[in-house]
């Protein structure tokens, strides 16, 4: 059943959404992150996205591993159920939860250490399973919570606060997800709410696994000039290659399909993602092309952002496993238990 929680307070100018909720109603506890941490901006963008999508707070399942980034689920949608699991293993929790109840909106928050080091195996496999969830990777190139060691996404040559220089090639989650067949792959920057919010909304509406790699600077340990995860660098080198606009089903304006340079992708729930290509050689629906394009832009020292790849996928975990359409948690025990007669019958074969 549906419950509309009463907004804590009505703020002038805070237009309530279809549920009568304001952004305030999607907030959580007060953040304990460092002042200026990119992660807090991502939290703000998420709150905006939930609000704009008219999401019922208690229908949200928010999950994370361990890390500064993984703390953030505590900072949004206080009426959502949260699961702050163990380091690098959130994907398996999400997969099990989704298997049991596909009716929730799953939002996973992770960091580059959580996802690309200890959690790399689980990330790859949750992509492969195409678990229906939004997976936000708050990428800062370091282990923030343990005070600034390099993560697997640290750039070659980048210096740690302790003075070490990283020599290992970084793992690019976007590249990885694309090669593993992910159907929704985006990259954005925590500082660019205008770009981030529609991408998050599209990711929430996409059926299947949606990876959003968000460059989210760590002001305390990795915000120096040379770092490609710093505010200064991202501001300069980040290139938006597709502008993303998202139109929920109800709000859809059917007229302006396929107008100049705009490509529209209708999602499973009927809502529409509109992609305006900034660079005309870029086609966000051609996996091979995207990989090529990204390689080239990396070579130019650019960081391409936007909804980089999208493919309308229906084959999420439940389709792959061919489960019933209702959540398994909703099945009454009576339909689950074969009962004594069946047991009698069955045991004839054990004779």
């Amino acid at each position: 059943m549906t419950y509309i929680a009463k907004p804590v307070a009505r703020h002038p100018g805070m237009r309530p959404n279809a549920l009568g909720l304001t952004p305030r109603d999607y907030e959580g506890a007060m953040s304990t992150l460092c002042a200026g941490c990119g992660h807090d901006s991502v939290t703000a963008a998420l709150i905006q996205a939930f609000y704009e999508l008219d999401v019922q707070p208690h229908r949200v399942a928010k999950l994370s591993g361990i890390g500064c980034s993984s703390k953030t689920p505590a900072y949004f949608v206080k009426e959502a159920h949260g699961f702050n699991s163990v380091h690098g293993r959130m994907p398996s929790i999400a997969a099990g939860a989704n298997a049991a109840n596909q009716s929730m909106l799953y939002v996973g928050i992770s960091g580059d250490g959580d996802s690309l080091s200890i959690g790399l195996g689980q990330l790859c496999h949750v992509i492969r399973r195409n678990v229906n969830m939004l997976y936000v990777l708050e990428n800062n190139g370091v282990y923030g919570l343990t005070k600034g060691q390099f993560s697997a996404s640290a750039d070659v040559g980048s210096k740690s606060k302790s003075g070490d220089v990283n020599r290992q090639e970084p793992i690019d989650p976007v590249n990885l997800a694309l090669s593993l067949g992910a159907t929704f792959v985006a990259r954005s920057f925590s500082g660019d709410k205008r770009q981030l919010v529609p991408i998050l909304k599209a990711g929430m509406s996409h059926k299947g696994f949606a990876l959003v790699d968000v460059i989210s600077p760590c002001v305390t340990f990795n915000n120096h000039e040379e770092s490609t995860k710093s505010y200064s660098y991202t501001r300069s080198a980040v290139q938006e290659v597709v502008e993303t606009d998202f139109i929920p089903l109800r709000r859809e304006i059917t007229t302006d399909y396929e107008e100049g340079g705009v490509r529209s992708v209708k999602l499973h729930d009927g809502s529409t993602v509109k992609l305006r290509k900034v660079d005309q050689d870029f086609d966000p629906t051609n996996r091979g092309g995207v990989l090529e394009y990204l390689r080239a832009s990396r070579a130019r020292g650019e960081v391409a952002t936007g909804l980089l790849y999208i493919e309308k996928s229906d084959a999420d975990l439940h389709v792959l496993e061919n489960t019933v359409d209702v959540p398994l948690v909703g099945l009454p025990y009576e339909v689950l238990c074969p009962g004594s007669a069946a047991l009698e019958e069955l045991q004839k074969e054990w004779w």
Partner: protein
Amino acid sequence: MGIVAQLNQDRINDFALRVGTVNGTGSASANSLLLQALFRMGIPVSGKNVFPSNIQGLPTWYEIRVNRDGYTARSPDFALMVAMNPQSLKQDIAEVQSGGWVLYDSSKELGEELLREDVTFLGIPLARMCAESFKKARERILMKNIAYVGALVALLDIDMDVVKGMLEEKFSHKPALIESNFRAIRMGADYAREHWACPLPVRVRRMDANRDKVMITGNAATGLGCVYAGATVGAWYPITPSTGVMDAFKEWCERFRVDPETGKKRYCILQAEDELAAAGMVLGANWMGARAFTPTSGPGISLMSEFIGLAYYAEVPSVFVDVQRTGPSTGMPTRTQQCDLILTAYASHGDTKHIALYPADPKECFEFAVAAFDLAERFQTPVFLMSDLDIGMNDWVIPRLAWDDAYRPDRGKVLSAEELEKAKSFFRYLDVDGDGIPYRTLPGEHPRGAYFTRGSGHDKYGRYTEDDEAYVEVVDRIARKIASAANHVPAPEIHRVEGRKAPYGIVSLGGAHWAVLEARDQLLAEGVDVDYLRVRGFPFGAEVDRFLAEHETVFVVEQNRDGQLRMLLALETPCPRTKMIPVNYYGGQPLSKGHVLGGIRPVLERAKTEVAS
């Protein structure tokens, strides 16, 4: 020779035989044909598969014991050896009882050096015979196995109609196979009757012991128990000897849990990328309110340790089936042990303690599987169902399973949307009822039910904390909660000497039960008063304490090196460790009477001499 003489006396329905073959050659089905025939003849029987960690080409054995008195623990005293594998011929011949018989394939001469004075060799040219009467190469190999069954039918006086009936059932869909198989059976039987005096003194005779019995493996029963418990999510990573549990869950679900209209599944089996992920999936599904479980073995438990601690501290119900195998490390994956008792009791870092159930046979695997889910939800904690390779993978004759249709899952304290709507407030970890068990909610039910599940420090309201008192209050409650489970796990099974106070007590658990029962009966017959308690759940209840206190000397019989049950008893009961005498066998075979007596007798002797002197 004395012994020969003895064996030559009739031994009806009381002997063991061993079949040595090459794995991957189809002998498995021949052997189960044999076992099933004896079962259907109403005779108490057991079969033990002794197989290598390998797919094809290595020696493998199958042991069958028939015993009119119902003792079906493993017996290593083989009156008859069916030695079909040249690789193991030497060992196999060496292992037959003096005065016993060796049935071998005489297509090839037996080497002089292999012959024994004190056993009778029965040579039958199986390879040649099959080559003559069967065309296809594959068929010739398979039928060789069926043919030795035929010989045994004659030698042991097995009911031919029963065998024929089974073949007809088995191959009802392809009659051609009925004919060929039965031809092989007769071929073996006829040869035996022509060449030897059939039946042998060791032989079988119809009984009526199996009227209300069925024959099944523990893994199949466990899988079925999960279905009846209403489990909807099974997550796993394949590992011997636990794989059969999920195979069975899948088989029963395909039969009982598929929507007839749509053909869609009312269950979800997730083959995880590893055991860590399997455990995470179980936690995630249980968090959402599904009954979810994972079957694994020792190495899997080690890998799941971190998640087990999370489930304990965040109080997420979860069921872990540990089908134990011989450790440590990879150990002997196709051998049995009871070697994960300490690990599962205190798994994960920090202060933890977990509920465990110790089934002794497939019947209890079925019943305890259901109990495991009830306990996991009632106490909101991980529960371990501790099976082992012997129970899990071998066919057992057990009383027919019963089911009470009035059963409903014990979901424990779960607040419904309605209750939440009425409630003023909800806090996840409050000890509202003073029993150490807090209330939980299911995600998506109601805004007021929201809480944050975390493995980091939290107070009774579910808020993050680093405050010592707030932390202590929660972990103390959890300790009380787990302690209280002692009254809810299956009570111990106790066998007492009638009327007299026995000086000796035996404590054991799990599959060791059957050998202990047999050994105890023998001791009783010899006039030694010995009581017996079989632990069925952890934490232990007051009855266990009492039993330990009541006896001067307690033997703790178990299948591991370090006496892990004895360790648990020393930690969890007032009984001093020194009072408990360890009787451990850990070679990887199922326990047999001899192991038990071998550990107990010397102590009894010493006691006698002390009294004497």
